[in-house]
């Protein structure tokens, strides 16, 4: 993908658009890969007081550009942290309400922001067994604002999940709250095509902003269900030179940002 001024990959676009959503002074629970890079990018640009949290029980580390951890439970993820606790206690801080953002990826996502990271096919006889939830279910259940960052593909944006690993708005409306999940929930979905929110009452995924050079038709064609479009769809500003420069210092070998 390219714009008139700058070349960037889809994964870089996704990381920049995700990072821009993260406000300063908040706490964020991040997983390995793109979420980690997006959180660090935000910290190194507009949100210097963003507090990164890893499931290994690691609070407020200072990640080093070019030395990204390969797991959320290792020394590179823990560099210069302010506090450690057990894994269980880390997630209990979240259940208590201390985590403002949770950042997730997904193998499949549906129109209510539910996600699947467990199996493709039947759970008891899977076509592909995926690594599993890890902390994704816990983040989806208890972080205050959940952001899902994924490549926009028809096989990923599906009418029906093969397995609901992590709950979004369940079946829409007030079904999340009726399930007992009285806090948190999906906030935004960021893809390489646009940014999506959720309708206030139906909780249906809705196109809110579109990236430069992308048409609503393209978005519809790459989505496996009918997608409502907000009354005013904004166009996002392409990644800046500065954002891309910092991003490439963070992940120079594109270990984390593999796509596109």
């Amino acid at each position, binding site marked *: 993908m390219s714009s008139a001024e700058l070349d960037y990959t889809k994964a870089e676009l996704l990381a920049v658009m995700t990072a821009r959503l993260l406000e300063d002074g908040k706490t964020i629970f991040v997983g390995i890969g793109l979420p980690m890079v997006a959180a660090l990018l935000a910290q190194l640009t507009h949100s210097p007081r963003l507090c990164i949290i890893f499931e290994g029980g690691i609070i407020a580390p200072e990640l080093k550009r070019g030395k990204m951890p390969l797991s959320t*439970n290792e020394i590179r993820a823990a560099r210069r942290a302010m506090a450690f606790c057990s894994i269980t206690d880390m997630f209990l801080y979240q259940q208590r309400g201390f985590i403002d953002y949770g950042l997730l990826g997904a193998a499949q996502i549906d129109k209510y922001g539910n996600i699947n990271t467990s199996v493709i096919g039947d759970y008891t006889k899977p076509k592909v067994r995926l690594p599993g939830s890890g902390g994704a279910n816990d983040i989806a259940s208890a972080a205050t604002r959940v952001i899902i960052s994924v490549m926009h593909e028809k096989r990923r944006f599906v009418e029906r999940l093969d397995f609901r690993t992590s709950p979004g708005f369940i079946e829409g409306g007030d079904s999340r709250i009726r399930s007992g999940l009285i806090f948190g929930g999906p906030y935004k979905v960021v893809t390489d095509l646009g940014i999506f929110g959720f309708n206030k009452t139906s909780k249906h995924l809705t196109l809110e902003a579109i990236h430069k050079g992308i048409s609503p038709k393209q978005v519809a064609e790459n989505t496996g269900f009918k997608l409502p479009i907000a009354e005013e769809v904004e166009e996002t500003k392409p990644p800046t030179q500065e954002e891309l420069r910092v991003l490439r210092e963070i992940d120079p070998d594109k270990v984390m940002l593999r796509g596109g």
Partner: protein
Amino acid sequence: MMGKSVDSRESPYKFNLRETRRHVEEKDKSPTSKLMTVEEAVRRFVANGLHVALGGCLYSRTPTAVIHEIIRQKLLNLTISRSLTGMEADLLLGASSLKRVVTSWWSVGYAWGISKMMRKFVEGNQVAFDEWSHLSLGLRYRAAAMGISFLPTVSMLGSDLARVNEVKEMTCPYTDEKLLLIPALYPDVGVIHAQRADKFGNVSIDGYEFMDQDIARASTHVIVTTEEIVDTEIFRKHPDRTSIPFFCVDAVVKLPFGSYPSECWNLYEADFDHFSEFSRRVSESGIDGVRGYLSEYVLGCQSFENFLHKIGSTRLERQRRSMQDVIS
């Protein structure tokens, strides 16, 4: 308890709390030396068909020496549980030691993609993969660590994970909100690698503790491998630094680099080249790649010390230095 709001289906989680407590009551809790070799520890406390909870997380403080010894002793039908499960499960699969894995996530690690061994065995229904959310697994150990049968949470509510694991819900009698009741998990054996211990089994873990304190309390027996044995006076001088007290522990094994190729916080970094070599063998030859690895690095080495000797001191020193480079 609170029966009115819990549904009445038959549960797969049968706890005999009297039985699980009896094991602890009958434990020898005197401060006697529990020093032994890893061979003796595994022979005494691990047997075919048992549930072994592994401390550490993914490639941090993995009790690698005990995994190798389990494979050398050709134990069968084991269940393992771990917060995040990595290369150790692929090794145990290659040795035909496993029947069930209870975990929240299973792969050698992000950089090496989805585990081909996991896919082959789970998709072929040759091994069970019981998937729990990360917190839920932690609460399973914690409920057992507390000596009770479940803990309530909001995690896994409204998910298929709760459905396939047959976890029960209840309506809170105080707030009328729904809660999920995570059943306790009482492992037969807990295996933990730590930075230091004394001969009685006082254990001090530096850095992140993961789920290890709960595993030590939840398990019937506990094997600890340790980078160094220190005098009990060290613990008496810094009792606030004791992660696990001696009466939880049944075996203490001194094994420097006992976690390699995993990292041990503040001492040595994970050897990513070793994981890459393993993953390359699996990519190229599938289970034969794992068997080749086992015959070269586990069965072909009479002891864990021999394995480390094969890795070589240059490589181990490199891992020590790279830990210091990151931590400073």
